[in-house]
């Protein structure tokens, strides 16, 4: 993925700072709690939510099961409609293709619709290296780009910023990129939106090349779908002469009719709306309406490796709604940056270590960045059992085993730093397999209970730094049971 994230520290280290940042905590708490209640209300409005969720899951599972067939069908349909299809095995290849296409137009700037796939591959940096400037046009992406920041949320990349911070960024940075912020700009959201409208308008009107992702690609028709709110998507998709869409291969749905499921579940799950303000659907090119050249770049970049994993492949059902982020207590406190990926939150914790592998410190720590509370699974509109995949990936990290990397089967060694834990788990299993040993340990603990401290040194501080230990009882239950016996002669 993007070079921005290379060398990220492990999740607990990054989260340590975030937890202590009271502004960030306040911003995230406010935003996630606002959307949580709204999402619940938007979902409760639909009496057949469970059926829609199940249909969504099945559509995606079926597509993934026959992905080769549907990708070929996409290629045929898009080509027949006047588009050109490119295939990219990894980020570098996708960047090379897009950069080449932009250069061929002779343009040195592009306008971009918010797209997770292009963030994932670090497209803006790749374009910059070739002298092409990419303007992000989604409001939150603009905030991130102007603030030289990193995205921290799938839907709202600037969720970590409050309105006052956004005003300050607009005031100080807009002039470097084009039209400056209006005089006397306040932090009223309507004024901030107006500032973005004015700043970006000149860019939209002169743009010759637009770059997007897509929420869905319909195999039978070759139709691409972009779901958005602001109208920046419509601008980028219709005004330029050339449109380049970079789309992960898992975005395919088989039929036109399948959209009836996702166009109901996606808006309610993401922005908690019955329907988002704008959805654009286009099939190839059309005379005198919209771009005259359309390129679709189909991106693998770790997706086929994920597909090869029996348990982990369900992560590819994701429609990027971000409901799991909004409901996650860990995300709310650690913030998106701690996940060291463009995909933060629970879905990021299972997606990043699969797309990138578990070799880096951050990727090996992500499967543990969850209390397994299950709130993410409950809200997921395509029923991804995120806790199940997290535990599965913990196993991969702790024990190693078979995995697929760049299309090849490999046997992973256990990650470093888990040797002591492995030994402890083994020892615990040994003791728990022998009730006598367990009882011996319990008795020893009870006999020495007056000597037990309520705080611990060394690694034990991870618990007792913030919490007291419970006192050890005078006798374990099993001794009481035998002594009384079975509670019948309980003299205490």
């Amino acid at each position, binding site marked *: 993925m993007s070079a921005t994230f290379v060398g990220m520290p492990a999740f607990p280290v990054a*989260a340590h700072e975030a937890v202590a940042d009271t502004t960030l905590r306040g911003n995230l708490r406010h935003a996630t709690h606002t959307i949580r209640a709204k999402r619940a209300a938007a979902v409760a409005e639909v009496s057949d939510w469970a059926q829609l969720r199940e249909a969504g899951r099945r559509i995606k599972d079926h597509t993934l099961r026959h992905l080769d067939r549907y990708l070929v069908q996409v290629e045929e349909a898009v080509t027949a409609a006047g588009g050109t299809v490119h295939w990219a095995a990894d980020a570098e290849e996708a960047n090379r293709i897009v950069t080449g296409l932009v250069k061929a137009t002779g343009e040195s700037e592009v306008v971009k619709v918010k797209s997770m796939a292009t963030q994932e591959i670090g497209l803006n940096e790749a374009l910059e290296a070739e002298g092409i400037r990419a303007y992000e046009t989604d409001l939150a992406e603009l905030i991130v780009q102007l603030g030289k920041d990193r995205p921290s949320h799938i839907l709202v990349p600037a969720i970590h910023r409050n309105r006052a911070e956004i005003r300050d960024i607009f005031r100080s940075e807009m002039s470097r990129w084009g039209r400056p912020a209006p005089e006397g700009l306040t932090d009223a959201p309507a004024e901030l939106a107006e500032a973005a409208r004015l700043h970006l308008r000149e860019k939209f009107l002169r743009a010759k090349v637009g770059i997007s992702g897509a929420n869905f690609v319909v195999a039978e028709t070759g139709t691409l779908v972009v779901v958005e709110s602001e109208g920046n998507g419509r601008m980028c998709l219709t005004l330029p002469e050339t449109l380049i869409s970079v789309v992960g291969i898992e975005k395919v749905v088989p039929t036109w009719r399948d959209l009836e499921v996702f166009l109901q579940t996606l808006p309610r799950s993401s922005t908690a709306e019955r329907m988002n303000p704008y959805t654009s659907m286009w099939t190839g090119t059309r005379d005198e309406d919209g771009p005259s050249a359309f390129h679709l770049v189909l991106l693998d970049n770790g997706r086929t490796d994920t597909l090869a994993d029996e348990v982990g492949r369900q992560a590819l059902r994701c429609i990027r709604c971000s409901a799991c982020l909004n409901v996650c207590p860990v995300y709310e406190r650690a913030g998106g940056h701690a996940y060291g990926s463009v995909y933060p939150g629970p879905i990021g914790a299972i997606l990043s270590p699969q797309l990138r592998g578990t070799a880096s410190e951050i990727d090996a720590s992500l499967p543990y*960045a969850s209390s397994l509370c299950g*709130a993410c699974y409950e809200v997921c509109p395509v029923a991804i059992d995120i806790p199940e995949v997290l535990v599965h990936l913990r196993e991969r990290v702790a*024990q190693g085993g078979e995995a697929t990397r760049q299309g090849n089967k490999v046997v992973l060694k256990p990650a470093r730093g888990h040797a002591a834990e492995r030994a402890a788990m083994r020892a615990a299993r040994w003791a728990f397999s022998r009730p006598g040993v367990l009882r011996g340990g*319990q008795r020893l603990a009870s006999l020495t209970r007056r000597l037990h401290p309520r705080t611990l040194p060394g690694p034990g501080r*991870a618990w007792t730094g913030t919490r007291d230990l419970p006192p050890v*009882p005078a006798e374990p239950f099993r001794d009481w049971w035998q002594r009384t016996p*079975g509670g019948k002669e309980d003299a205490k």
Partner: protein
Amino acid sequence: MRVALFLTCVNDTLYPDTGRAVVRLLTRLGVEVDFPQGQTCCGQAHYNTGYRHEAEPLARRFAEVFGGYEAIVTPSGSCGAMVRELYPRMGARARAEGRGNTLERVLAPVVPKTYELTEFLVDVLGVTDVGAYYPHRVTYHPTCHGLRGLGLGDRPRRLLEAVKGLELVELPGAEECCGFGGTFAVKNPDVSAAMGADKVRNAESTGAGVLCAGDNSCLMHIGGTMSRLGSGMRPVHIAEILASTEEEPAV
């Protein structure tokens, strides 16, 4: 009915009062309870930390020890969910790894007859008023595995509402995780502690003196946080509240 108490290793070692309360409560309701001495640990910590293969022998032992009973009752939402949700998954994974269906077959019998305590009371015994007396203001935290794993729903609430003298007050953000999460508590101590502190603050805002839950692992974390923050509140397992009577009140 031959009913076995699956107490869990944490309760056995650290919270014997909870075990005694379950025995008292079930005996009062006319249930004969046995505590199979061969029981140790269900393997949840191993499984959830990524050591599924280390958890397998513990699951086999569980099936062996408890297989002969008609019902297995546990005062722990998370250990109950381990057996009910994850044992079948463990079996299926073993099969997928080409190890046949032995594990699946061995574990299958204990899965449907394992009940979390409040489920057993409401669904099997069909009682919500267990004749308890507990004159305190109480707020209830539904633990994640009980709530979302086992789907306990309003069973604990109905039981608590029927307790004489008990004033049940709503916990703000009740359904949010307390931050324990097993080894999560030590692998991500900062986030875990922040979640725990928020849970305690929400609990304190209710004015209740007691925070009640159905899982001592979560209560160990919440209680340890309360104690460190100097909160006046106490964590109490729901079994101890339901076991309390006017004749023999719990403190």
